[in-house]
């Protein structure tokens, strides 16, 4: 049985989680899926596009806030509130992308952090609209999705569909072109590829799926808060990609699982989570520069 056979098995196992896991762990599994989706969407442009999108969770936060605000401040159907999140994130991606994509590599990353922090500052300061540093709590979720288990199933299905969509895009001609741009933008230009436009579309797709993750968080947690788009979360998501393996498709999901499980365990013993995170990061960079899944894939290929 090939590697592909593992995916349906894993999915079936995940479907069974609520039957034998306590509620808290089901909730934790939802968080892992959401962060896995977020990290995978970052990796779409990071590992596969070679773009240093350092402040990716801005699009996650904006997605979450879009859903939250529409649910609390309007009488719009919840379905539309969910649907609006990825599109709001995608629109923000267009705006930021058009500005940032002119620069390359680290300069791209620095500008992207600056603009992202600006968005965070707006959310943080605009008390009357966003609730400022308190965020918004007790967001009314439709009855159907309100329980921990139903929120989990919804998250599982949407995450799986989103991951499938991203996978298909990465193996499409566009995805291959994106990887070509990552490897060698100059050569890509030479063989007739409009590099900047392809990068922009990739950024929009990545932002879109980060928005999906943000929307899912609202359903699972019924809150939003400004930390959702603070740069430390972006850093954590970046580390998820690196730990899991940023040149593999499922690496970021694995990284998300590892980091969230570790954080849950460790924070019961110590408050120095950031320190632990730093140590993990250092170890990975030194010993597994391609991440855990990258290392495993290499081993399998070499036989």
């Amino acid at each position: 049985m090939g590697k592909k056979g593992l995916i349906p098995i894993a999915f079936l196992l995940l479907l069974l989680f609520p039957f034998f896991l306590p509620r808290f762990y089901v909730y934790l599994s939802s968080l892992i899926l959401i962060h896995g989706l977020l990290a995978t969407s970052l990796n779409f442009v990071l590992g596969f596009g070679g773009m240093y999108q350092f402040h990716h969770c801005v699009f996650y936060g904006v997605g979450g806030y879009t859903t939250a605000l529409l649910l609390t401040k309007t009488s719009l159907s919840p379905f539309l509130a969910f649907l609006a999140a990825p599109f709001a994130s995608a629109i923000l991606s267009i705006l930021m992308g058009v500005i940032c994509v002119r620069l390359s590599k680290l300069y791209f990353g620095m500008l992207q952090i600056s603009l992202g922090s600006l968005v965070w500052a707006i959310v943080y300061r605009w008390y009357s609209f966003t609730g400022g540093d308190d965020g918004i709590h007790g967001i009314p979720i439709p009855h159907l999705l309100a329980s921990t288990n139903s929120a989990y199933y919804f998250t599982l299905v949407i995450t799986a569909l989103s991951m499938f969509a991203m996978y298909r895009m990465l193996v499409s001609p566009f995805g291959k072109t994106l990887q070509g741009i990552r490897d060698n933008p100059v050569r890509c230009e030479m063989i007739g590829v409009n590099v900047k436009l392809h990068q922009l579309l990739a950024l929009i797709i990545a932002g879109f799926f980060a928005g999906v993750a943000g929307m899912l968080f609202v359903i699972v947690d019924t809150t939003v808060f400004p930390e959702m788009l603070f740069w430390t979360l972006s850093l954590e998501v970046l580390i998820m990609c690196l730990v899991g393996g940023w040149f593999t498709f499922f690496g970021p999901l694995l990284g998300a699982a590892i980091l969230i499980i570790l954080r849950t365990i460790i924070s019961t013993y110590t408050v120095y989570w950031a320190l632990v995170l730093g140590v993990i990061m250092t170890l990975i960079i030194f010993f597994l520069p391609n991440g855990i899944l990258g290392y495993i894939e290499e081993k399998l290929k070499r036989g």
Partner: protein
Amino acid sequence: MLEVKGVSKSFDGFMAVSRANLTVNKGEMVAVIGPNGAGKTTLFNLISGILKPDSGRIIYKGEDITFLSPYEIFRKGICRSFQIVNVFQRLTVFENVQLSVLSREKKTWNLLMPAKKFYVDETERILEQVGLKEKRDTVAGFLSHGEQKILEIAIALGGKPEFVILDEPTAGMSPEETVMCMELIKKLRHEMDLTILFCEHDMDVVFGYADRIMVMVRGETVIEGTCDEVRCDTLVQEAYLGVSDE
């Protein structure tokens, strides 16, 4: 087919190419020679649109292409390889060449279909022609240097070129590899009806394969002529062949 007329390019006041002239006729194989830093690569960059000249004109098939962008020039059928290996390191050999074909056919925006179904026959035919068929699924970064230089040429062929520019195709190759590579280029030239412009330091290779030669020294065209004309020219012997140890 290609005419370079009095083209100059300076970098911060340094004339890398100055009033260079060059004519390449259809079906010819023309070599540009000159010592290190003579401006050969710069000239190729000017023709392929990576750089824009300060003055002069570049005419291709009667059309002025002086200020076209690299991808417009690529679409006109002028494809090139690079002196320093310039492939897609993490893509497989197949994907490297396929990408070039996809781009030529303007299919790079397709998001919905798996790429592995696109232009399989054409890509495999190119790989077969250059002898990389066995390495089809090898990641380009794992190829030997010589194989990467060949892949470099294969990517250029993906653009279905009529005119191919090869910047030191055999740079860094062993003598045996060099012969193999030049024989390959000769074979491709006839099979695909190519016009070729290349540069090369090895004089045996140049005199053995080129129809005509253009000698460049300090950015200027010293002489342009057949192999015999160039060999006999005293200016060249003094300025280049005698002095340079290449």
